[in-house]
């Protein structure tokens, strides 16, 4: 899943004449991960602190000069680099006030971009395709520069990625209706050329490193997003001939009429792409959205409406998206989680629960902020004071090492602080996963109350943290089991069945020491108390004692005269299980299930367990038939239909066993009578239905005669 958070405005745009240009030529990461360098398309470079929305410094070149490439920050030397008038390279530090007094030098050819390389010297890419390291270029500015590209070729896009710990520079050049991808690496020195399939130049490109290569995402004006995998050859050498680069269609977005004019795509991780300028599939025209699409399932994961005009520009840096729209530049933090179809269905045993906390937030490389590695991402997240999920990350780190009591305190404080429901859900899921995996690793560690509190927050579900329930079962924490059974909406049948087995096989003595939820206990207590007190005086649902004596009085199984006189049904039988066991079994009865799956797992119950459970169900059924459930009020109590369904399922699953087992014979015959009675009642009801319908019809036919005598009664 991916989510977009609240947008904040970083600065106001100097929209160019006609309003077609946002006035921003580039946004690059700066010294701190909370800072960005924003380059104006005219003359100025500004450094902003994102969390404070404050400009830290601003530099403007003289009138008449223009900034031709986005300024970058060189972390090696803590200097900013920018190119003015295509040929003049200027280098300055934070302390410099006037850019004109800073260092500048003129090179012999037009520069296309200066590209910052993580942990290395920046690279300078010339318009004709040559590449130099910045330090070597500054040492000899007038050195001759070779021409890699022909004169008519235009560079459309360039990026530097760290592939196999080596910087790899790639850029797209367009010439004569042909788009070439050029790729250069320094160690070993290699260059390769690829021809993009389709010919036309993409509107926007984005690259991600992958195993043994680079994945290139291209957005075309038809609304299609294609992916190409560019292999990285181990051997060096310059390959002169142009190789074709195959592509696969990832997304085909609805564009409406015409073609996209200005749109931009940034790949956030291997499954998510952020898009701006592409219409929202369900919103009307005239509205612009920032969308995050899942390329694996072609689903729209998150969208945010952008007010005002969209310029088709989008940058991504340190977990935030930068979108110029209308008259402002907005910063939108985002988050992408691993997603799968199975997770969406709630049926996946996610591997993610064992993943360390930092794995929750996959690194977000982008072509503008050349692949910050995992470590730097985490540093960013921890340092920025922005959104609450960043605090969560910190918190998860703490939880990993704290003692059980501290964990408890922290969890309660944390949950009480969070207000946003969405954040709580993410946070609670992450936290539960961390706690469960820690419990599995450290046998002595088991923060019962913290887990109970998490479950109580109602934000967890089984699929978010699948090991929690099994862990509780292992630790025999039946209270937690009860809460989980109450709260989780998506417990798989197998797990429900294993819970059932555990409850049935546990002795009543141990269970009675467990403290369970008051309300459910009170409900069962009420049932049991009623059964001991009065048996059943008012019997409804067709269970008139006199008719039952007639019906089943002669049954061979009734050995005791008491049963014969009172009723053929042991409606006032004793509860076959202990109080707390009954409470837990009630919770099982209320779990949602699909009967064909449950049937498979029910077969694994042993014969004594089945008989015990059936007896309990029969007891419940007897109580319910006596209309006691209306007298004993409870928030949660199994419904009559649930009880009947479980009886049916149990008998179905173990029919042969039950028939063979001598101790089950009495039980079966009782159940048989129940069914016979029900059938009889239903047939009687069917007869009544006909009469009622006739009555209704008779009532509807209103008289239309001119004169009638009627009798009315007024009260």
């Amino acid at each position, binding site marked *: 899943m991916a989510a977009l958070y609240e947008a904040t405005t970083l600065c106001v745009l100097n929209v160019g004449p006609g309003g077609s240009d946002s006035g921003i030529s580039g946004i690059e990461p700066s010294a701190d991960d909370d800072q960005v360098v924003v380059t104006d398309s005219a003359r100025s470079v500004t450094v902003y602190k994102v969390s404070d929305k404050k400009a830290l410094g601003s530099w403007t070149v003289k009138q008449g000069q223009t900034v031709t490439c986005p300024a970058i920050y060189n972390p090696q030397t803590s200097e900013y680099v920018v190119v003015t008038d295509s040929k003049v390279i200027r280098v300055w530090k934070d302390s410099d006030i006037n850019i004109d007094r800073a260092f500048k030098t003129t090179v012999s050819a037009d520069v296309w971009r200066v590209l910052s390389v993580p942990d290395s010297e920046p690279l300078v890419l010339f318009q004709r395709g040559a590449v130099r390291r910045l330090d070597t270029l500054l040492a000899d500015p007038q050195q001759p520069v070779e021409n890699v590209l022909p004169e008519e070729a235009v560079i459309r896009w360039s990026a530097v990625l760290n592939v196999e710990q080596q910087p790899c520079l790639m850029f797209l050049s367009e010439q004569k209706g042909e788009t070439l991808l050029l790729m250069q690496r320094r160690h070993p020195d290699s260059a390769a050329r690829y021809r993009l399939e389709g010919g036309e130049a993409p509107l926007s490109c984005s690259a991600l490193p992958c195993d043994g290569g680079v994945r290139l995402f291209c957005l075309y004006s038809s609304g299609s997003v294609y992916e190409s995998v560019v292999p990285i050859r181990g051997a060096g050498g310059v390959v002169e001939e142009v190789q074709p680069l195959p592509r696969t269609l990832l997304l085909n977005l609805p564009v409406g009429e015409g073609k996209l004019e200005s749109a931009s795509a940034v790949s956030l991780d291997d499954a998510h792409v952020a898009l701006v300028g592409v219409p929202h599939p369900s919103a009307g025209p005239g509205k612009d959205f920032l969308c995050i699409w899942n390329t694996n399932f072609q689903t729209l994961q998150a969208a945010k409406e952008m007010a005002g005009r969209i310029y088709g520009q989008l940058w991504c840096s340190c977990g935030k998206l930068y979108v110029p729209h209308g008259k402002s530049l907005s910063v939108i933090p985002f988050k992408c989680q691993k997603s799968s179809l199975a997770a969406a269905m709630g049926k996946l045993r996610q591997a993610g629960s064992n993943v360390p906390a930092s794995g929750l937030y996959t690194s977000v490389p982008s072509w503008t902020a050349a692949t910050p590695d995992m470590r730097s991402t985490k540093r960013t997240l921890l340092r920025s004071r922005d959104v609450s999920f960043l605090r969560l990350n910190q918190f998860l780190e703490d939880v990993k090492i704290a003692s059980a009591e501290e964990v408890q305190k922290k969890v309660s404080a944390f949950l009480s602080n969070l207000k946003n429901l969405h954040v709580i859900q993410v946070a609670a899921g992450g936290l539960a996963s961390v706690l469960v995996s820690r419990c599995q690793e450290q046998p002595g560690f088991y923060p019962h109350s913290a887990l109970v509190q998490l479950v109580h927050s109602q934000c967890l579900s089984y699929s978010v943290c699948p090991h929690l329930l099994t862990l509780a079962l292992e630790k025999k924490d039946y209270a937690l089991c009860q809460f989980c059974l109450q709260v989780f909406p998506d417990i798989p049948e197998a797990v429900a069945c294993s819970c059932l087995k555990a409850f049935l096989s546990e002795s009543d003595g141990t269970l009675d020491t467990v403290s369970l939820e008051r309300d459910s206990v009170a409900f069962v207590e009420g049932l049991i108390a009623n059964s001991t007190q009065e048996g059943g005086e008012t019997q409804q649902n067709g269970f008139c004692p006199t008719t039952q004596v007639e019906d089943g009085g002669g049954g061979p199984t009734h050995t005791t005269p008491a049963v014969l006189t009172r009723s053929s049904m042991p409606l006032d039988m004793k509860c076959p299980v202990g109080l707390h066991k009954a409470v837990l079994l009630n919770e099982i009865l209320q779990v949602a299930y699909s009967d064909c799956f449950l049937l498979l797992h029910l077969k694994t119950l042993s014969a004594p367990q089945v008989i015990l459970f059936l007896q309990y169900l029969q007891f419940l059924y007897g109580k319910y038939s006596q209309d006691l459930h209306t007298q004993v009020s409870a928030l949660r109590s199994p419904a009559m239909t649930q009880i009947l369904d479980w009886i049916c399922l149990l008998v179905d699953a173990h029919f042969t066993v039950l028939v063979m087992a001598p101790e089950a014979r009495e039980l079966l015959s009782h159940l048989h009578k129940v069914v016979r009675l029900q059938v009889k009642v239903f047939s009687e009801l069917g007869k009544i239905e006909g009469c009622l319908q006739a009555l209704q019809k008779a009532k509807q036919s209103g008289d239309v005669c001119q*004169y*009638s*005598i*009627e*009798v*009315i*009664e*007024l*009260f």
Partner: protein
Amino acid sequence: MGEFTVHRVRFFHYMPSGICAMAFNRRTERLAVARTDGSVELYSRTDHFFQEKVVPGRQQRSIQALCWVGKRLFGAGLSGEIAEFDLDNLRLKFSQDAYGGPIWSIVCNPQGTHLAAGCEDGTVKLFEILEDQIRFERNMGGQKGRIISLAWHSSGTKIAAGMIDMIKVFDLDSGNAVQRLLVERGSRMQQSQECVVWSVLFLSDIIVSGDSAGKVKMWDVNTGTLIKNHQVTEWDVLTLSVSQDETSLFAGTSEGTVVQFQLLDVVLGQEEKEWVRTRTFKNHTHDVIALAEADTVIISGGMDTQLVVRPLLDKLDFKSRDSSLLKILFPQRSLVSCAKKAGLLLFQYPTHLELWLKTCPSVHLMCLFPVRLGLQGEDHVCCSAVAPCGEWIAYSTTSGIRLYRLQRDNKNVSITKVPKLPKVLRHAHQLCFSPDSSHLYGTTSSAVHVVALTSAGCKFEHSLKPNSCVDSDGKFLASANSNSEIHIYNMHKLKAHCTVPVYRSGVSAMGIHPETNNLVIVHADHQIFEFSIEQMQYTDWSRRVQKEGLHHVWLERDTPVINVTFNPQNPNHVILHDSYMFCIIDQSLPLPDRKSQFHNQLTLKSLPEAERLKHSHAFKECKLYQPLLCVDMLENQSLVVVERPLLDITTNLPAPVRQKKFAT
């Protein structure tokens, strides 16, 4: 409370007639409505549109236009005569032939000194309004083509006349047409079909016209050019109405819709304004022929015979009787009289009476057969009554009163007219027999006349002054007039006994209790009073009602109570009814308090007998039968209920121009 035998009668084929003209008098807040049978009804706006007076109709009288001049009401129609209505005596005051063929429209000038009539011969005839008559002054125009609609400019110097295919503007000083605005024919219809300008309005700077091409057009007064053209409907725009401040305009169409236009700022806060079509109301099934705008409501009427009062302020927070839609379909007076002892029903139709007799007196079954009384003359019946013993029938038209004696022996019924009625009793607004059938009381605008009835004949006894609603219990007679003054007379002494304090709302029904001599009065605003005649003061029950206040559900009903009767078996029971319910008030039970459920019959039915008394209150309302024209109680605890199903009325109407079909 008990069981009641209900005689549910549905054979009164009362048919209301369509509305053909309307005029609203802003000064007196009275609405005059003319119907196709020639009758004119007066409604009071201040009194929740209570029908105060009805001028009975006349055969062959058709009213095309109504016009208020001060407190005087003028009407004109296709007979070619202009008539003034006498609103005190509820008859025609005079009528004068305009000698221009059928008159389609009359208007009076803003000063109230002149009337203009648009005639068939193409002339606009100007009349001067005098004290007791009107005098022809001059003609304007006179070419071919009838004049359908007229509008007088507020300055009084110009008249716009809607004709066929054009509008002419006449200057009053010169008497000549100064402008001729051509109205194009509709594109839908064949070009050959002429376009009738059904209605014109003369605002201060524009002329608005509604025509048979379904368009509302705005014309510039000075240049005579078309400013704006609104295609409102595919059928005709029949009538227009404008608010007094000229910011809101309504158009009624043949489809049954009323369309509102408003003069709104083109740009908010700027001077420039434009007429914009804003709302459409669809409350009629047939043509909307007449519209009247009364400040916060728009009143519309048409061929479907109902008068619809639509409030324009619909964003009111609280719901009240004034802010809800009001439909007036049935007359707010009783057209049925019932002889309690004899079990007779007398139905009053405009042109005849129908008497239904009980033929088998032994059974409580009412075997009825009709006796039809045709009328003489052209005037319509204005009131009728049957004596409780069933021997006498009286009816009145504007021209005279007729009394009949009914004699029954076994199966033969003979009706003989009683000759020589006293000359004083020329016509009556209300007729009433004394409970012992010995006297007939007839009211005129000035007096109550008493006529003694004997088997030999009748004899004038006395005149009591002044008078409209009458009820009597033999000893006392109460009469209420349109100013809601109630006078009580002692009939033994033939003298005025006392008067009841005047209440602000009109009396819609009243009745004197036969045993206690208490007068129960129900007003148009649904207030109920009980006045003890002997003690000459309000009874304790009445004071309790006033103190505790009536339940809001009772007060929010939209039709007034039209009859008050009493249960002969139980003196505590008062039976009231309006068009949609009847209600038995048990005076021995507590009144419903504000929070309690008013319609509690179903609740009471579900309760066990013992608890019913605890939950029941005085108002026993029954909505089983509707719409109701009459509810009366016979002697043997049986009710007579005369129903007129709405479906029967709608099936008798002509087919509408356009019917809403599913998914169109």
